[in-house]
């Protein structure tokens, strides 16, 4: 982790020095760099009564809200940021976020750290650590103040992991109707971890390509997003493949041959945000497909309705997730190899999720740059990796009510 961060920082420092030199050379009247500093944070509390279970807001966190006790680990986080404008075209940003991570620690993580070149309103390029823009009301899921709800819908966005990448993006814009149309293309090496079954997974070589098409007007934002992630050298399933290959059975050996060290995940999403006067409505739909063993098909959806009354903004939300394996399960193994069948089933089921939640809450903007939120969610899950037991295993047939209160701020 330290090596990668320091590599990114060195690259950024080099790019910053180059850009500063370029700017000075290109424009004798260049102004001094303008530096801005700021940050954001959330102090969040949550409680639910499902003893022995932990509710996680996303798959990257090792923990969350534990049953039967008031906890602050799931939603609390803090981020700091420095940005600089070198001249009319060149700027840079560095941002770090601390939150509960996949190891259960609060180690700050570098996010949104890049050098930017903006020659005109129609073209924008960035290089460095960037994020995928899947979120309609904020390109970072950590800036709670930017969201209406306590947390972005976990059923849709909590399973979108590795939303940062080290790479480059290019954005093209042009007016369309009474709005602005923009196309963003990006690619690079994915960053981020997963916490599954009590273990941390860090794909060592994951490449991401993606595109986002946005149309934004005063009252309406429409977004279509697509992303592809390729992972190689994932050896997590290698022991299972070796065990299956050792069985003198045609079916077992066929399955062993299907287990590859590479994965291919395709994600597509559609979103709409309507804001007019005090009323706002947001809808998100997503589809995902894992095309290498274990193959999956899934979809998620979320709807949020809100109405502002002065400083108060009550809202209701509904979201659901279905992610099911497409593999044949029966290996027809002899009884003495039942343990291998169980291991195979666990591998096939490792991301199976069927969960839905309905929430009601209120946001209270009691001071500029501060918001309090109170939210109650009822969650039903036939199987979910977002709700795990003490060993980190997926919860089954759970119904829980989660009470949350957060203080979000920016500075």
């Amino acid at each position, binding site marked *: 982790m330290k090596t990668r961060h320091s590599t990114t920082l060195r690259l950024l420092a080099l790019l910053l020095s180059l850009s500063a030199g370029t700017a000075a050379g290109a424009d004798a009247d260049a102004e001094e760099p303008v530096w801005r500093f700021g940050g954001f944070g959330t102090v969040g509390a949550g409680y639910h009564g499902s003893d022995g279970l932990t509710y996680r807001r996303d798959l990257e966190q090792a923990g969350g809200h534990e049953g039967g006790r008031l906890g602050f680990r799931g939603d609390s986080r803090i981020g700091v940021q420095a940005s600089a404008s070198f001249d009319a075209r060149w700027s840079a940003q560095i941002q770090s976020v601390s939150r509960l991570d996949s190891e259960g620690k609060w180690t700050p993580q570098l996010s*949104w750290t890049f050098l930017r070149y903006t020659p005109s309103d129609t073209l924008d390029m960035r290089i460095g650590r960037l994020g995928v823009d899947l979120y309609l009301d904020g*390109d970072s899921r950590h*800036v709670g*103040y*930017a969201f209406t709800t306590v947390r972005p819908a976990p059923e849709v966005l909590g399973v979108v992991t590795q939303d940062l990448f080290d790479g480059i993006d290019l954005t093209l814009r042009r007016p369309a109707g009474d709005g602005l149309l923009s196309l963003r293309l990006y690619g690079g090496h994915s960053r981020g971890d997963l916490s599954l079954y009590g273990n941390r997974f860090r794909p060592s070589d994951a490449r991401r390509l993606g595109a986002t098409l946005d149309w934004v007007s005063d009252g309406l934002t429409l977004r279509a997003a697509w992303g592809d992630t390729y992972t190689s050298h994932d050896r997590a399933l290698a022991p299972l493949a070796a065990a299956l290959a050792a069985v003198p059975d045609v079916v077992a050996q066929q399955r062993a041959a299907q287990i590859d060290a590479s994965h291919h995940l395709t994600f597509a999403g559609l979103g709409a945000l309507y804001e007019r006067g005090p009323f706002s409505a947001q809808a998100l739909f997503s589809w995902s497909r894992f095309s290498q063993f274990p193959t999956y098909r899934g979809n998620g959806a979320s709807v949020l309705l809100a109405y502002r009354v002065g400083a108060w903004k009550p809202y209701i939300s509904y979201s659901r997730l279905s992610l099911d394996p497409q593999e044949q399960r029966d290996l027809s193994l002899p009884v003495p190899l039942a343990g291998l069948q169980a291991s195979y089933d666990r591998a096939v089921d490792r991301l199976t999720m069927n969960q839905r939640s309905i929430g009601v809450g209120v946001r209270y*903007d009691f001071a*500029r740059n501060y918001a309090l939120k109170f939210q109650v969610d009822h969650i039903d899950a036939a199987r979910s990796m977002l709700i795990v037991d003490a060993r980190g295993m997926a919860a089954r047939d759970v119904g829980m009510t989660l009470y949350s209160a957060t203080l979000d701020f920016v500075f």
Partner: protein
Amino acid sequence: MKPATLRPTRLLLALWLALYGAAAAAHGIAVIVNPDSGIDSISREEVSHLFLGRIKHLLPGTPALVIDTVPLRQAFYQSLVRRGIPEIDAYWARLRFSGRTQPPLQIEDAAVVIERVARDRNAIGYISGAVVDSRVKTVLRLED
């Protein structure tokens, strides 16, 4: 119990804000640019794009200096996009922390806004229609 009292400075500020708000209500809000900018008029959509950070240039080449007049923010954004200040602040939090752009410069005093716009060809701001003078040019008028 001791009755609540207003200090003279607070009283004057409250009076000024009331008078300023009343003047703005009577004359609307004027979106102003530098007379040398070469801009004669600007559409409501363009103003919205500029003040919400969707576009950054008023003139080719140099980013615009976009200025909020703080006492008029509520009326301005309500009139322009029918959104209140909490929504606008949340919106800017999204953009700031994903590195898209920076929010408009916040200036309390309309006289200072006029000075900045009069001094900078790339500046755009808004003030009460009642206080517009010849140093700046009105390119759009919003009813509040």
